[in-house]
């Protein structure tokens, strides 16, 4: 096995290699030497970390509480304290994780020394019930907040308050058939001027006459020798 770098041995409680001679403060400085941090005691200040846990969906709520307590005791062993806990409860996952479609989500905000962070990360990795975890350092500007699932709420509100579309009525003018009035031919004296009796004709007869005229015109056009059709 090739020689590995020292960082990997951070996870063990006791250092495998004895602390070097120039290190005067004991085993805790072993971890700091290669992190390029000063060996002042101010470095070992408690920092805020946030853990998001995804616990298996097969667990009941009691089992979830048990698993959480186990994790909290491990944090307490490393001189850490939980100052904010938020259980999201069972929640559907966006994709299948470990062949499960839902899981319990828990958020823990903790105060912890920066030395022991990796140890807790390891313990979360090894825990059987924890499917995924995210351990992040919290920036100083961060406020612990609960974010609502706005998308779903907004959708339902929008759907409820949406003004229903009015059924549009067709505004196109529908050609209404005028009632065909049949005028009885008035008794008119036959005059010599032979005026066309338009008053007595019905609309049907007028349309027939128009059709006949059109047909005659078409025949003239077709039979005309000069035109090439």
């Amino acid at each position, binding site marked *: 096995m090739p020689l590995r770098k020292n960082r990997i041995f951070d996870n063990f409680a006791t250092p495998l290699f004895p602390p070097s001679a120039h290190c005067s403060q004991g085993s805790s400085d072993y971890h700091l030497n290669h992190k390029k941090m000063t060996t002042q005691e101010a470095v070992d200040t408690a920092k805020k970390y946030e853990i998001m846990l995804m616990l298996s969906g097969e667990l009941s709520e009691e089992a979830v509480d048990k698993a959480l307590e186990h994790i909290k005791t491990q944090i307490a062993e490393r001189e850490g304290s939980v100052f904010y806990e938020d259980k999201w409860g069972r929640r559907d996952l*966006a994709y299948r994780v470990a062949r499960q479609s839902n899981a319990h989500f828990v958020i823990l905000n903790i105060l912890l020394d920066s030395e022991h962070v990796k140890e807790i990360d390891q313990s979360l990795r090894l825990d059987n019930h924890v499917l995924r975890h995210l351990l992040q350092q919290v920036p100083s500007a961060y406020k612990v907040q609960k974010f609502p699932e706005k998308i779903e709420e907004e959708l339902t509100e929008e759907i409820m308050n949406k003004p229903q579309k009015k059924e549009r009525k067709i505004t196109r003018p529908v050609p209404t058939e005028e009632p065909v009035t049949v005028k009885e031919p008035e008794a008119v004296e036959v005059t010599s001027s032979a005026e066309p009796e338009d008053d007595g004709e019905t609309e049907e007869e007028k349309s027939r006459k128009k059709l006949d005229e059109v047909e005659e015109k078409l025949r003239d056009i077709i039979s005309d020798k000069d035109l090439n059709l």
Partner: protein
Amino acid sequence: MAAFNNRRCPFCKEGTLVIDYKNIPVLRKFTTRYQKIKPKYYSGVCLKHQKKLARAIKNARFMALIPYTQ
């Protein structure tokens, strides 16, 4: 280079320093229909916030709050 339709960074307007990966509705605004991260040219986000946004979206994807693709 001006952004699409001269958009301004919405995070710079509000002065947000932290983009939380748990804030799913905000993250969804900056993803496309297929849940890809929108380029900052189209969403108008500045580089500083785009990097934080991208990190937040990737963390949310890892924790199965958002899908990788759809």
